């Protein structure tokens, strides 16, 4: 099993969710996050005061999947979150040791 974590542009969230659903991913977790990468921040001006905003808002999408789906999932995220501009985000892949469904106590791939 794999845990796929993608940092994407906030307005791409719906497209990514649809793409993942379409290939059979049954659940994702979404968090609003801030961070910086190669995309530069912006400046904000309040009367005379100018502030550089370094941390930009992003959305973190996490999905636990069967290992054999990995290629498909990565491709779906890449396609749906892509705008071609700096700041589209990244995908991180981790090995996932165990999954437990709390209601039934099922474990492993059955719990996904």
């Amino acid at each position, binding site marked *: 099993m794999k845990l796929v974590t993608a940092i994407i542009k906030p307005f791409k969230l719906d497209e990514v969710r649809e793409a993942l659903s379409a290939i059979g991913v049954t659940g994702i977790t979404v968090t609003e996050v801030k961070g910086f990468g190669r995309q530069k921040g912006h400046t*904000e*001006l*309040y*009367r*005379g*005061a100018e*502030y550089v*905003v370094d941390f930009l808002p992003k959305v973190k999408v996490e999905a636990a999947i069967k290992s054999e789906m990995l290629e498909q999932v990565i491709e779906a995220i890449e396609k749906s979150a892509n705008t071609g501009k700096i700041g589209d985000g990244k995908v991180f892949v981790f090995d996932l040791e165990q999954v437990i469904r709390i209601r039934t106590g099922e474990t492993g791939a059955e719990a996904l």
Partner: protein
Amino acid sequence: MTRFFRKLTASLALFCMLGLTGMPLVALAQDKPAADAPAAAKADDKKAAPAAAKEEKKEEAKAPATPPPTPNKGDVAWMLTSTALVLLMSVPALALFYGGLVRSKNMLSVLMQVFVTFSLITVLWCIYGYSLTFTEGSGATSSFIGGFDRLFLAGTFDPLKGEFSMAATFSKNTPLYELVYVAFQATFAAITCCLILGSIVERVKFSAVLIFMVIWFTFSYLPVAHMVWFWPGPDAYTAASVVDAQNAKAGLLWQWGALDFAGGTVVHINAGVAGLVGAYVVGKRIGYGREAMSPHNLTMTMIGASLLWFGWFGFNAGSALEANGSAALAFMNTYLATACAVLSWMFGEWLFKGKPSMLGAASGAVAGLVAITPAAGNVGISGAFVIGLAAGIVCLWGCNGLKKMLGADDALDVFGVHALGGILGALLTGVFNSPSLGGPGFPNNWFEMKPGYESIMGQLIIQAKAVGVVFIWTAVVAFIAYKIADLAVGLRPSEEVEREGLDINEHGESAYHG
């Protein structure tokens, strides 16, 4: 525990002091007007005629044949409405305007400072503020400060006879219930004190604010308002021979012929300079210039600015004291100049800073309102166009170039907007009051109603002198008041308190959860 008792006894002592000194005087003052009335005709114009209202009583005694004029119900209704509109300008309008501009950890502290300052000044106004401002003083200080005849508003209402005392307006035989005038002016005193807060927010102790306010209100607001606005009223000018004597009873700047329709000097320069002095004396916020101090909620700031605009109709048009043409002129000028300033600030910002911002538009509105305040009923429509357009540009500079030069952390730009806008408005009032520029001019002889406007240059100099007097007066008083507050309780909270925020530490609550 001991600290709590010390605080408790201190506040009790304060209340007892006010009560003890006040009460006997109330009784005295209440008896006085009735006793004075028959003798009033004899005493005539030589001296000891405290309030404008009393002047009317005298006339009554002199000419019993004509019944005394009664207030016009339209005027009363408009002035009661205006008073409530001006209250709205402080709470919630100014509180929201300021509150949105600070960081979320200090939101409630700003709301509290405005809310409580407003209440505190209202109470002080009714105890001694009104009396010291709008009654005639005695001796050498009479052109600077009034007397104690209206302590605790004594003599404004006689429950036995069911009689109300009258205040003067700007028309002969057109009195207004003095209590309405008291309330209207109370809201002015209170908002002026609240305005100062913008310079020192996010880093000042609540207790220090209260101490400062009591001192500054007493020694700066009251004398300045008396100097600019106190006069015996039009009905006192009963003959050509008494004109000079009546003029001599007025406040110093009134005597000079300085024009201030609704408070360019009294309210905005007075508060704006006190704010700047505060920014210097209290010092910069920790992290100023290094950390981002972005406004936490410009939506609130926009709501606040809009409510200020709305309430300002009461402030400016209400300052006509009647529901008449002067009020109509003030209303239109207030409306128009503000819109002009929104546009000029916004375009100025767009041009020089790259983007037209919401905060810029809201700030432009306030700058325009401030600048048109002394001018409202004193200039024609052309004056409103020029004053509004100039205010947006000048105050934009006040918050940028000038602010950098001054080097103070005037957190919410009270000096850049209020003092600078007030000075601009006060000076341009002198220019656009001219009948040759579409202004109404003003009478200087209230018996023959001779026009008092002589020349643009002449009036400009009078206005500049008035600005100078108020500027220096409030700066000195503010400096001393901050120092006294510093000695008494300390102006600033500890560094930890300031970093964590005043809401949690000073007030024990937070504005937002989750």
